[in-house]
C-alpha cells in the first residue's frame, strides 16, 4: 500500500499530509512532482492544500494543467482513491473530477479557524470511520471555499448521496453548507477543511484522523 502526495509549485500542505501519513498512520508515502507523468504504484493520491501557482488566475486553474494531472484523471477514472484537500479540492473541480466551482468566501476574507462539520454520508471509502450525523471539529483555511453548484447539480448531489461533510455554521457561504463531496463513483473526495491539521493530540483535535484510517482500511480490503 502506498500513498502519493502531489506537489505543485505553491503547494504548502504537502509536507503536512506527508507527515500524517508517515508518522501518524504510519504508511508508506512519497511525494509526486507535478511535472512527472506517472503515478507509479500509488494506491491513493493526495492533492494537498496550498496556493498552486499562487492561485494567481483562479484557484487550482493552472495546476489542473500540470503534466501529472492526466495520470491523476486516468487513475481516478479507473477507480483509484483520490482525496483533494482545500486547494486540492479546487484542483479537482477545475479538472472536472468533481462537479461545481469555488467562489470567494462571502465576507471576502481568508478564514482560518476550527469549524464544526456534520458527517452527512458515511458511504464512502473516506468517511466510513464516522457515524452518520456525527459532529467533528476540523479547521478550515481558505479564501475561496464558497462552493457553488447550480440547482440541477445540487439535486444530483443529494440524490446520489454525494455530500460527505456539511458545515453546521457555514463560514463561507457555500451552497447547502457543503464542505466536502465525492464523485458519483465515490472514489474521489474533495473537502475544504484540513483533516491533516486535526490528526494529532497536540493540535487539540484528532477528528480528521478517521479519514486517513478509513482509506487505509479500504486499501487493505482491496488487498
Amino acid at each position, binding site marked *: 500500500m502506498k500513498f502519493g502526495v502531489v506537489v505543485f*509549485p*505553491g503547494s*504548502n*500542505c504537502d*509536507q*503536512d499530509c506527508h*507527515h*500524517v501519513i508517515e508518522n501518524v498512520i504510519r504508511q508508506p508515502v512519497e511525494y509526486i512532482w507535478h*511535472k512527472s507523468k506517472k503515478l507509479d504504484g500509488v494506491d491513493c493520491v493526495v492533492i494537498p*492544500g*496550498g*496556493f498552486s*501557482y*499562487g*492561485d*494567481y488566475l483562479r484557484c487550482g486553474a493552472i495546476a489542473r494543467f500540470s503534466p501529472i494531472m492526466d495520470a491523476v484523471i486516468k487513475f481516478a477514472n479507473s477507480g483509484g482513491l483520490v482525496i483533494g484537500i482545500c486547494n486540492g479540492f479546487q484542483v479537482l473541480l477545475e479538472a472536472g473530477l468533481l462537479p461545481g466551482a469555488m467562489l470567494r468566501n462571502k465576507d471576502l*476574507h*481568508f*478564514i*482560518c*479557524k*476550527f469549524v464544526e462539520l456534520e458527517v452527512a454520508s458515511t458511504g464512502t471509502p473516506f468517511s466510513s470511520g464516522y457515524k452518520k450525523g456525527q459532529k467533528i471539529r476540523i*479547521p478550515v*483555511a481558505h*479564501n475561496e471555499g464558497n462552493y457553488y453548484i447550480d440547482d440541477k447539480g445540487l439535486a444530483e448531489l443529494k440524490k446520489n448521496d454525494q455530500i460527505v461533510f456539511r458545515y453546521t455554521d457555514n463560514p463561507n457561504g457555500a451552497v447547502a453548507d457543503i464542505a466536502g463531496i465525492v464523485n458519483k463513483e465515490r472514489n474521489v473526495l474533495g473537502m475544504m477543511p*484540513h483533516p*491533516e*491539521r486535526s490528526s*494529532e493530540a*497536540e*493540535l*487539540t483535535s484528532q477528528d480528521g484522523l478517521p479519514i486517513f484510517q478509513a482509506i487505509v482500511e479500504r486499501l487493505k480490503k482491496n488487498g
Partner: protein
Amino acid sequence: MVEREVYCALGLTDAEYQKIEQIMGREPSSTELAMFSVEWSEHCGYPRSRKYLSLFPQTGKYQALVGEDSGGFILDDLAIVFKMESHNHPSQVEPKQGAATGVGGIIRDIFTAGARPIASLDSLRFGPLSEPYNKYLLKGVVDGIQFYGNCLGVPTVGGEIYFDESYSGNCLVNAMSIGVCKKKDLARARASGTGNPIMYVGSSTGRDGIGGCSVLASAEFGEGEEKRPTVQIGDPFTEKCLIEATLETLATGAVVGIKDMGAAGLTCSSAEMAHAGEVGMEIDLDKVPLREEGMEPYEIMMSESQERMLVCVTKGREKEIEDIFTKWDLHGVVIGYVTDDKKVTVKHQGKVVATIPTEALAKAPLYEMKMEEPVKLKEMKKLDLNSLPEPLLGHDAERVGSSARKGTDRFTVGIYNDVLLKLLSAPTIASKEWVYEQYDHMVQTNTCVLPGSDAAVLRLKGTKKGLAATSDCNSRYCLLDPYRGAQIAVAEAARNISCSGAEPAAVTDCLNFGNPEKPDRYWYFVNCVKGIADACKIFEVPVISGNVSFYNESPKGAINPTPTIGMVGVLNNIEQRCTSEFKNEGDVILLLGETKAELGGSEYLRVIHGKIAGEAPALDLAGEKAVQALVREAISRGLANSAHDCAEGGLAVALAEACISSKDKVIGAEIELKEVSALRPDVHLFSESQSRIIVTCDIKKADKLIALAEKHKVPCDTIGRVGGDKLSIENWVDLPLARLASAWRNGLKEALA
C-alpha cells in the same frame, strides 16, 4: 564634481560626498554614487545607531548566533533563527503591498540562513480608527500580510496591534519570522574562494523601489517620467518556490555563501558578501535577468525588486544549482565571480561602471548625534490621582467614590461595569480575532497554542520540545520613560513567554523612532536601547538580531518611541504548555505579584479620562524574574491550569479575558480582593502594575502553589473562584459573560466598520 542637487537627492550630505571623493580619489560615477548612498543609509549601514546597538548582550543560557543577516540560538542539534524588520514607510503609502513585501523580506532573511521559516508574527501600530485613512491602512496591512504569508505557507501565529494618535500619518508595520534548521546546515552570508562563481537566483530585476535616483537620472540621462515606480509588488508564489529551491540548493553542499537582495538589492548583497568573506567580487550586469528594457547600471544596482538572492557557489557546480532553480521555474544564472582585490567591480556593456573597495561600502561612517531630554516630559509625568474623578460614567463622583471604596452601598453594585466594557471594546484591548483569523496560523501543523493566548507555542517535530513566541511594546510607557518603558517591553515579552510555560531564550528587536537628527528623538532612542540592554542582561537573554527604523514622523511630530521586542522561548516538554483562559469550574484564582497605584500611561487613563500622563509603572527586574520563574515551575509541575499576565487594562481586563477568550467555552469568576480599602477601586481594577500574573489551580493543589510562591518570595493572593456565568469583582463589576464577550469580540470589528 557631481552636482550637489544629485547627491542630496540620494540622501547624501556634503560631508559624505566629500568623504566619497576622498575614498575614491576621483569623482565617483553615477553607479558608484548610488551604491554609496544606499550602503551608507541608516537602513543598511546604521551610521546613527551602530554605536549604541553594541550595548546589547550577546550571550545567554543558549549559545547565541549573532551577526550576518539574522541571528538565533542553538537548541540541541537545532539552530533557531529569527529576526524582526520594519516596513513602515512603504506600508503608509501602499498598505497591502507594503506589508506584503515586508513579510517577504523578513522571511528571505530566515531561509537565506539555511533555516525553513516556521512562523511569523506581526507587530502593528496605527492612528485611531476614527480616521478613515487609518482604517484603510489597517485593512490594507492585514490584507497584505494574509496575502503573502498564507500563500507562502508560513503560519502567522501572533503579533500585536496598538492604536495611538502618534501613529496617524506614520503607521508601524514590524514583521518577525522564525526558522529552524539543523545546526550543521546553517548557511553563511559570505563569499570566498577566488574564482568561485556568483549566481543570481530568483525573480527578475525591474525598476522597483528606486526612489531617490530620479534626480540622478534627470541630471545625467534625462529620462521620461513614467519610469520609476517606487511601490514593490509582492509575489508570494515566486517566494514560495524560492524557499524550496534555496533549501534544496543548500542541501547540495555546493553553496559557499548566500545573501538575499533586500534593501539596496544587488549593491548590498554583493558588497556585504564580499566584505564578510574578505574578498572582492566582479559582476556583469549584462547577465542579470531584467524585466524592463533600457535599465541603467545604477538602476540595476539599486533595484529593490523582490524575491531575489545572490549565491556564491563552489566552482564547477554551478550547473547543478542552475538545474534546481530551473526545476522551480526560477532564474539561476552566473553573473560574476569572486576576486582577491577586496573590491566590488561592476561591468555593464563591456565597461567598468563601478569599482569600490568593499570596506568603504560596508563600513558606513559613524555619527555622534546630539541628545536631549524633551522639555515637555516633566509636565507630562505629572499626574495627581486625586484630580481624577472616579468613576466617571454618569455618577456623582464624590458620593460614589467614597461608598464604593467601602463596598457597602447597594446602589454602587456594578458601577464599574460600563468602564470595563468600554475598555474591553477599545481597539487596543479588544480581541484581535478579526485579524488573526485572516492569517493561516495552522499551516505546517506545529501551532499547539493558537493566537489568542499570551504567546503562541509551536512544536518542533521530531523532538519533545517546543518554542514560544511573542512580540511586545507599550510605547506609551516609552514616551513617559524610555529606559523603563523599554525594560517593560522586554519584561512583558518574557512574561508572556513564561505564561505559556516556556523559558525566554533570545530577543530580536525593531527600533522605531523619529528623526535621529532631532536631539529629543535621539535621546529616546539611546535610553530605550539602554533599557533593552540592561533588561536583557538581567533576564540572561541575548539580543540576536534586530532592525532600526528612524524618521518615523508625520507633520504632527514623531511617533511614540517604539522599541518592539520579539522574543522566543523554549518549552522543554511540549505537553507542559499552558494557555491563558480559565479551564475548570471550581478552580482557585491566584494573583501573583502586587497591585500598586500605577495608573500612569494606562489604557484606563487614556480611554476613560482622555489623558496620556503620569509615570510609567515601576519595574523591579529581580521581582519580575521571580514571578516568571514561579509561574514556569508551577506549570511544569502541573499546578497551574491557566496563566495570564496583567497588561493593558490591568487586573479587570486580564480577568475578563481569561473568562471569555476561549471560543469553545466561556466561564465566569467571582473575585474578592485582599486589602480592598488600601487602594481606590479604579486602581485595583485598572492599574497597570507590572510583574503580575493570574493563575488558576485545582483547589486541592492550591496549598502547593502558595508554598511555591513563598519559596520564590513572590506575593500571592487567593482572589477568587472560577465558575458561573458572570464576572463579578467585589461589588464594582458585575457582568454576564455574554456582555463581556460581545464588547471584547466585536470591539475591533465595530471600530473598523
